[in-house]
């Protein structure tokens, strides 16, 4: 299934693996930050709603 990359196999594999890793890290970072901020906001809103207004 793997195509014959000939003499340039190292360069092509390097380009694909590092680029896809960079994209995956970026997606994971955005997703993890989104989850953390969402959780912090929910906790803060719950805490503020419990406090008596006045």
């Amino acid at each position, binding site marked *: *299934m793997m*195509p*014959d*990359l*000939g*003499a*340039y*196999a190292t*360069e*092509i594999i*390097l*380009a*694909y693996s*590092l*680029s896809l890793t*960079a*994209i995956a890290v*970026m*997606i994971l*970072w*955005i*997703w993890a*930050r*989104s989850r953390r*901020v*969402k959780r*912090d*906001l929910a906790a*803060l*809103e719950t*805490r*503020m709603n419990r*406090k008596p207004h*006045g």
Partner: protein
Amino acid sequence: MASLWEYANPVKFMKVSGWLMPVTAVIAGAMIVVGLIWGFFFTPDDFRQGSTVKIIFLHVPSALMAINAWAMMFIASLIWLIRRHHVSALAAKAAGPIGATMTMIALFTGAVWGQPMWGTWWVWDPRLTSFLILFLFYIGYIALWSAIEDPDTAADLTSVLCLVGSVFAVLSRYAAIFWNQGLHQGASLSMAPGTRMDWSYKGPLYICMIGFVFLFLALVLAGTRTEIRNRRIKALMIRERATA
């Protein structure tokens, strides 16, 4: 028809982006997977560049997004400076790290491609140099957002930086034409006669390019939603401190 400015309202933006973001993410994922599998496994070797032509399916879409991410930030920054819509400033902030990653991928894949084709990883060619400067502008833009405590002041200063950096975004795109020298070729895809690329390359390349556009949209929407929530956290904390 609803005015575009309605979406500058954070509540409206959160509502629309809540369903738009997963849709764009699914389209992006599907197109990138199809485009890269097609490009990597099912395209023939180029008669001059051999199998290294397969790098084009990452290099061109990432370079496209590196420049267009800055263009989007430029428009969002202008909207902030003129109309003071917070969502536009936060969208520009969210686009910064994505654009920086795309620029880094374009520079890296370009170097890896250049080594076997040009015999060097790097050369101070107009397009390569302007791309490197664009990357440094991205880093500066992200650092400036982090360095300033007051969000409105940060938005003002980063918007000005974005306007200045736009010169290099334009240069990155047209450097090969402006200077007409250097190792980097002109546009890979062009309507001009004589610049032909076979459809066996064009097909997966177009799919990857559209996939990267949707990936950028999905990530900017996700990032902007996070920034809006972060801003609300800060506002609530100020309110909490004031009522304590």
